[in-house]
């Protein structure tokens, strides 16, 4: 086996959560099962922070979440759910309850889809409210 432990662990994580290639020697069936199990766990974590989004999709939530996040590394339950909500809104598939949940978050926090969401100042909240009119 080539490569040191740090490189091999990084390659394994990349394969499991970031769409990286299958590291040599591993059982591809078991790694695929692990990849899906990790996505289900992330979906459950995101559902706790995005109850209306997850609830609007019911039993379909883990599948929809996985369809959007497979190959995208975990960035925390708040952003994981936020990214799915924005993607669904862009393709017109966001339910009204979930849209209200997303609008509520956007009113109080600023999130550019890349870094950690930040709380808006009072002035920023007022501006966000104006933009939504």
């Amino acid at each position, binding site marked *: 086996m080539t490569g040191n*432990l740090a490189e091999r*662990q990084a390659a394994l994580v990349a394969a499991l959560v970031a769409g990286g290639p299958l590291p040599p*020697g591993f059982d591809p069936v*078991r*790694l695929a*099962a692990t990849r899906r*199990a990790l996505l289900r*766990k992330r979906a459950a*974590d995101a559902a706790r922070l995005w109850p209306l989004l997850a609830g609007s999709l019911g039993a379909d939530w883990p599948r929809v979440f996985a369809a959007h996040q497979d190959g995208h*590394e975990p960035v925390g339950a708040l952003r994981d759910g936020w990214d799915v909500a924005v993607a669904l809104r862009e393709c017109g598939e966001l339910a009204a309850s979930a849209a209200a949940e997303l609008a509520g978050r956007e009113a109080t926090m600023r999130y550019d889809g890349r870094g950690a969401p930040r709380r808006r100042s009072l002035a920023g909240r007022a501006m966000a409210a104006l933009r939504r009119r």
Partner: protein
Amino acid sequence: MAAGGAVAAAAGGESPPPLPAGVGVGWRPEIAGWVADRAAPAFCEVIAESFAPAVPPRGVAELRERGIPVVPHGVRLSLGGAEPVEAARVAHLAACAAALSAPLVSEHVAFVRAGGRDAGHLLPVPRSRDALDVLTANVRRLQAELDVPLALEPIAALFDWPDDEYSEPDFLRELLERTGALLLLDVANVHANALNRGQDPEAILDRLPLDRVAYVHVAGGAEHPDDPGLYHDTHTDPVPPAVLGLLERLVERVPGPAVMLERDGRYPPGAELTAELEVIATAAGLPR
């Protein structure tokens, strides 16, 4: 025999058992009301990374006021990661232990991040000499900041590394010998790994360092329709009879354990959780 009798015996009978014999439960905010009013736990565990030592949740503070031991359980230290364990994570776990006056703390034989990416869950390390070396170094870094014993939990995993040099029991025995750490034995993990590797779980039990058991985890799991024949340690399903049976086999070898239920989602009504604690107590030969 008292809880942790095996540990006390291993230490020449001098160290008191870290936890009382009895059935405990993993404290989670979603089931805090049930834990406070119905569970009557012998002890509890909190997820260290969800716990703020300066402002503990009221439910946890009340457990401590009632004299119920609470163990901080780390899930994100990544002790098996090739990089040195992060000092801030070590300091946080030590602060949790201090705030709770915990009799011990626990973490996993696992890594959770590498190469700047976070897997979001516990992953298995290769059972190799170099992995044993990095684990030993990280465990010692953690122990150096703790005033209480550390128990290490072997995880459930759906895969193994291709170049394992040790069996899981031998790897664990070597790690505990090198570090002096105790064993947090999750019988559901033993069940899951044995089933998924085509091994006999009871034979695995006999090869584990049971004289180092500090306490025991029990959790539910299930097969998933996408992966027929694979057992997933979900913590969101009921505890299956086979896991309770393995707990019975463990208790034949380690009588009077401190044993606790881990439930992490899809919480059933409190009455169902209470019933699950009852069957765990029965399987473990403990009063309720």
